[in-house]
């Protein structure tokens, strides 16, 4: 299958490993991956911070860039959540019903990585090998906006060598929330403190998730406290093999 990658601005800029792993994983599974270079950002930061008007060109850019492709994938539940649940709304609010229809159309073909693998490609065992003790944090937008359910866990359970440990209070937000982490830094870090406590309680070496943003937050805290626990994007674990 020919799959267009939406890398997301965050992974493109700060966490390229997550986007590279998505490419490597899908190519290993026999698919063709393309990266339309006109892509930038989905505009979620603008929308969720109250700047919908500024987001309109980004919504238009996303729809125009990805319209030619049958399937679009992003290594982020949050960005796909924005594409699926906010883009058309932003276009409609700006009075552009044509863009809204186009945005809805592209959104219906845009998937988060675990959705693409399980729902579209029908694979749960991607042939990965990752010999580490891992705990999985289900990010809020994967869980409650996209409803990915246990798809990421099904993928992780099939990874050879991986010791999956359950994260206590997994469904509670890590405290990132985009600009919330800056505007309400104290509350955000209080939420993070509890998330880190739960991660440490599992005894895992690695905390994984489907969103680089939440991992940046959790990883930033784990690093600050010198816990020795790493954060690794789900795509990177699924892309790992015995030879890598």
């Amino acid at each position: 299958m020919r799959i267009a990658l939406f890398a997301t601005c965050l992974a493109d800029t700060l966490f390229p490993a997550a986007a590279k792993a998505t490419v490597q994983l899908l190519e290993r599974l026999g698919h063709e991956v393309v990266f339309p270079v006109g892509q930038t950002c989905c505009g979620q930061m603008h929308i969720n911070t109250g700047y919908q008007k500024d987001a309109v060109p980004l919504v238009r850019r996303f729809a125009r860039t990805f319209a030619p492709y049958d399937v679009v994938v992003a290594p982020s539940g949050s960005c796909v959540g924005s594409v699926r649940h906010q883009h058309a709304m932003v276009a409609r609010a700006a009075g552009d019903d044509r863009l809204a229809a186009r945005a809805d159309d592209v959104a219906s073909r845009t998937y988060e990585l675990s959705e693409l693998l399980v729902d579209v490609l029908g694979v749960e065992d991607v042939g990965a090998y990752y010999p580490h003790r891992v705990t999985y944090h289900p990010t809020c937008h994967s869980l409650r906006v996209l409803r990915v359910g246990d798809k990421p866990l099904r993928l992780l359970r099939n990874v050879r060598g991986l010791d999956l440990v359950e994260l206590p209070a997994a469904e509670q937000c890590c405290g990132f929330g985009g600009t919330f982490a800056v505007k309400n830094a104290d509350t955000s870090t209080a939420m993070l403190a509890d998330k880190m406590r739960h991660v440490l309680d599992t005894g895992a070496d690695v905390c994984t998730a489907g969103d680089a943003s939440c991992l940046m937050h959790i990883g930033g805290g784990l690093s600050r406290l010198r816990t020795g626990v790493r954060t690794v994007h789900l795509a990177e674990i699924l892309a790992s093999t015995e030879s890598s």
Partner: protein
Amino acid sequence: MTTFLGMPATAPRGVGHLRGEEPFPAAARAALANPQLRRNLGHATATIRAKSAKVIAELPDWQELRSAGSALKAYTMAHLPELLEQLEANVSAAGGVVHWAADANEANRIVTDLVRDTGHDRVIKVKSMATQEIGLNEALEAAGIQPVETDLAELIVQLGHDKPSHILVPAIHRNRSEIREIFLREMPDVDPTLTDDPPVLAAAARRYLRETFLSTKVAVSGANFAVAETGTLAVVESEGNGRMCLTLPDTLITVMGIEKVVPAWRDLEVFLQLLPRSSTGERMNPYTSMWTGVTPGDGPQGFHLVLLDNGRSAVLADEFGRQALHCIRCSACMNVCPVYERTGGHAYGSVYPGPIGAVLSPQLTGVADNASLPYASSLCGACFDACPVKIDIPSILVHLRNEVPHPRSEAAVMAAAAYTMDRPRLYAAAQRAARLSRLAGRRGRGLPPPLNGWTVGRDLPEPPKQTFRDWWAKR
């Protein structure tokens, strides 16, 4: 001739409790530093969450009930004027008197005058959010009338000269040893050997309240529901104090937000299942009191219903934001909210805290007066899942963020970011520039304001050697 009256008024300033003294982030900072508060809230919200989840799981048609509740509320908001007039006609026909209060000042004046007319100077109160919202207790006290709260937690708040921090459990921020101290200090004729054993504390409140119930002739209540079709008012509660207030006095005054009306008697079937399971985690609330006007020889012989607007018409005028008026005050959203769990209710500055408060308070007051509240959420979505009438709180938060006045510096940064992100070549150049400046400034591991909030408790990621798009281009 018709007159254009402009947009409906928001809740007036200078009266009631809808506005905080400081923005949420500042108020939250103080709350976060209080270890006792954090412990009390963490324990209490986790307990209610577990209890509620258990009884909700018992109902196979829970999602259908939620949809029914949501549809009934949407219908009610679309027909509010007609339903309120129908309610007024039916309450009046049953011997009650209906008063219309445009705002907090008018409602306080109406209630104060009604109490004065009875010649009494003390009222007993059933826990009510509407009267907290308008600051009725302060207004009564200013007129020389003593209001006595009879809900145990509300009594703790009143005796402690405190403010409620939760809409269902207003003293959730207090633990039993703090309650013991408040009772010892403030409760008339309290047993000085009082312990912090919960039954002992409840018994002390019971002794104090029993005397008050039997000697007070006027009661003030709120209402959970009012049935337009029959003119029936309903109050649900757990302690029996409500039943006392609603039946023992000679005069009953009920202050009700206009959104509490429901079309028909049978609609209560839906809400009386949704409310207790979402709020206290009970299958059925212990006391459900319903009354229709006045029954000669039985219960209060004078009944007044005060219909309160106080900004609600302004909320109704916002087609999207009006969902906030669907709220049945169950508090499920605050019990699941990771922000509320850590900051408590006082940080929100309004009697309506938590996620519903963050969408309701700014709409009642106008967004400029509560501009920080729509941002008091990580948009995690737990509130939307928990809401028994399916209020899409995260989407309303995003909607309100788009309405609030933005700081000029932030707006400039956002505009520049959007400009750059709509130009891929410029964007790629900015990515490289950001990476270089980060490499240069790595030692300090700090960011300039306002981004320095990030580095308060989190490291920045190591900058990658290459952006993804550069890697792709060279592949």
